[in-house]
């Protein structure tokens, strides 16, 4: 009580200095709270944009899959087939902390030009459309055409992929029917190009060259709900077409399909002869590598990835537990977090988060140094008073507590006001509708609309961080003040 009374009155007595230190604490706390709000909003937004729209919390891939970055690998490096999917999915779905799972195929496909032009490429997601929509509700918004009906084969083309294909192939793809000109690539509009193709020939593109080419009808053209520039490279197609394109066939299908002559062809080393003539779109090309895959495939349908949404478990913890399950059951699978699975996007998110936290941290270190310096100067100015208190029996601890109390009062009043204003600002900003179409900014904004977010835990974190700064800023002045002796006071007098 005595310490607090002294602290309060000292602060009032040195009002100018208190205002300076308080002002620094106020600004620091305001920026800290706002920064934490941006970081939390970003995390929440990323979760909505990536986890809830594209990857799930955890991605399960084949244990032969060396690279974690299964979605955005450089040059579209092949994602290994995930075998024994039924056993893997059964094991995953049986876990109480798993909300649901969704198998998908994912690999690069070449888009073949049918008029001897350059080919393009598109990342292809092979899905069961109905299951995919149930797993990622509203993630893809069809602007032209329609969502595939059950059992319907074809493509859902995002505007990003369309733009990319136009850049490389000079062709526009869209579903049959009326088309909003805004959905056509900008350059095509500028050049007044009007020829639109309604189907696309795709051929799997992999290291093993086990792919086939397949003509796919464009059923719908649209956009991903968010990060369309990034996810827009991923066209969705029905899983059977995907498997045909990638050359994924089960053993039972191979046994049924391969005739004696085809088996001979497979044994041939002159693969060029297979491409010598005829229409590419009408051919199905198979190789020895395909047969090797098929041997491993068993009778399960082949997918590449199993996307998993978790309930009340962090992705990191989910990965750890899933890997244990896979090991225990000897399943040929391994798990990775969504951060790992989206490679550069996840790294960028971590980088932005780190930069923001680093900025806030740096800000507070600077604030702590300025406050520490101001308080240390103040302690030295008050050497007579402190020395006299020591002479009449105040311990070093009492003096240190006095200094800490003074800083704590300032932090409580000014820092508290800063945190409060930060909470208010973070609460108001989403209503201002500050928007961006830039994908990087969308990550920072937590979506198209800038949406910083503060949960009670975040506010508590702000207060803890503020407390940390107060302690840090008080250490040096406390040391200085506690080291003042009665003799220093006498000498000064």
């Amino acid at each position, binding site marked *: 009580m*005595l310490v607090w009374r002294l602290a309060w009155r000292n602060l009032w007595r040195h009002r100018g200095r208190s205002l300076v230190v308080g002002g620094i604490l106020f600004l620091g706390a305001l920026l800290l709270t706002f920064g934490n709000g941006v970081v939390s909003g970003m995390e929440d937004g990323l979760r909505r944009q990536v986890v809830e729209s594209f990857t799930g919390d955890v991605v399960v891939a084949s244990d032969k899959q060396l690279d974690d970055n299964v979605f955005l690998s450089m040059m579209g490096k092949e994602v290994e087939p995930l075998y024994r999917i039924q056993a893997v999915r059964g094991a995953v779905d049986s876990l109480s902390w798993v909300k649901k799972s969704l198998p998908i195929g994912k690999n690069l496909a070449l888009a073949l030009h049918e008029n001897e032009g350059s080919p393009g490429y598109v990342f292809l997601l092979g899905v069961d459309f109905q299951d995919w929509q149930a797993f990622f509700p509203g993630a893809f918004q069809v602007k032209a055409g329609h969502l595939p009906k059950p059992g319907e084969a074809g493509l859902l083309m995002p505007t990003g992929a369309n733009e990319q294909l136009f850049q490389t192939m000079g062709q526009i793809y869209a579903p049959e029917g009326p088309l909003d000109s805004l959905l056509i690539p900008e350059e095509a509009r500028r050049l007044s190009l009007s020829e639109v193709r309604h189907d696309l020939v795709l051929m799997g593109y992999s290291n093993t060259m086990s792919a086939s080419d397949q003509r796919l009808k464009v059923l719908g053209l649209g956009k991903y709900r968010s990060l369309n520039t990034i996810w827009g490279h991923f066209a969705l197609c029905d899983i059977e077409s995907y498997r045909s394109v990638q050359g994924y066939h089960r053993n039972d299908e191979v046994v049924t399909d391969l005739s004696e002559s085809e088996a001979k062809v497979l044994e041939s080393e002159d693969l060029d002869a297979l491409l010598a003539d005829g229409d590419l779109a009408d051919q199905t090309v198979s190789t020895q590598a395909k047969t090797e895959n098929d041997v491993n495939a068993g009778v399960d349908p082949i997918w590449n990835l199993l996307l998993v949404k978790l309930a009340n478990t962090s992705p990191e913890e989910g990965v750890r537990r899933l890997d244990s399950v896979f090991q225990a059951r000897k399943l040929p699978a391994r798990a990775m977090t969504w951060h790992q699975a989206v490679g550069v996007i996840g790294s960028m998110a971590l980088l932005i988060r780190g930069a923001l936290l680093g900025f806030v941290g740096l800000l507070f270190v600077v604030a702590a140094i300025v406050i520490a310096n101001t308080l240390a100067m103040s302690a030295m100015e008050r050497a007579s008073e402190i020395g*006299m208190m020591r*002479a*009449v029996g105040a*311990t070093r601890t009492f003096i240190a507590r006095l200094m800490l109390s003074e800083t704590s009062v300032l932090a409580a009043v000014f820092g508290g006001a800063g945190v409060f204003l930060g909470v208010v600002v973070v609460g108001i900003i989403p209503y201002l509708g500050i928007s961006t179409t830039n994908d990087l900014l969308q990550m920072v904004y937590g979506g198209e609309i800038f949406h910083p977010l503060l949960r009670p835990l975040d506010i508590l974190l702000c207060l803890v961080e503020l407390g940390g700064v107060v302690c840090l800023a008080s250490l040096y002045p406390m040391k200085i003040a506690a080291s003042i002796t009665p003799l220093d*006071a006498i000498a000064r007098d």
Partner: protein
Amino acid sequence: MNIVEIRDLVKNYPLGNTTVHALRGVSMDIAQGALMSVVGPSGSGKTTLLNIVGCVDSATSGSVKVGGSETTSLSDRELTFLRLRKIGFIFQTFNLVPVLTALENVEFPLLLQGTLPKAKVREKARQLLEAVGILGHEQHKPAELSGGQRQRVAIARALVTDPDLVLADEPTANLDSETGDSILRLMQTMNQERGTTFVFSTHDPQVLRYAKDVVRIHDGQLAGG
């Protein structure tokens, strides 16, 4: 019975490349209930002597016992508690906590001790303020008091813990002669009525008439009494 026993006390200060010999083997005793004046010119070592007896400075060598405790072997914390419980201080100028009222300044050492209930602390502080004659000013801050009033508050604060020994380093140095006389008379009264041991330093020969014992110090050595 001696409240202070000093033997062969030496205090040297480094000053640049030289050493200042502030005390050169001082030996003396201070009896309980004494009203002693340490007299000497500026730089003679009287303040150093009081500081070492008051446990705010350390000896280079020798022995100093206060209330039976050998202070030269005590830790900083033990010395602080010794000052808090057994010694009262009255300084020349920097006497009071500026942000506390006169009453709160007197309460301060008792609150540091933390042994008495709040009401008792307040009552005791009021009694002492009354004893030193400034009861009407108990809610005034030091800046609102005159020099003499501040020294009276300082005396009340020095006495509030019922110390064995009160040390006053030139308590009248910054006061006019009339106020200085009243302060010394007050100390004399307290000594007679409460039996508190007072030791004060001065270089003013006029002050000596209030002391029962006089110790003269010159160049760091006792010159006789």
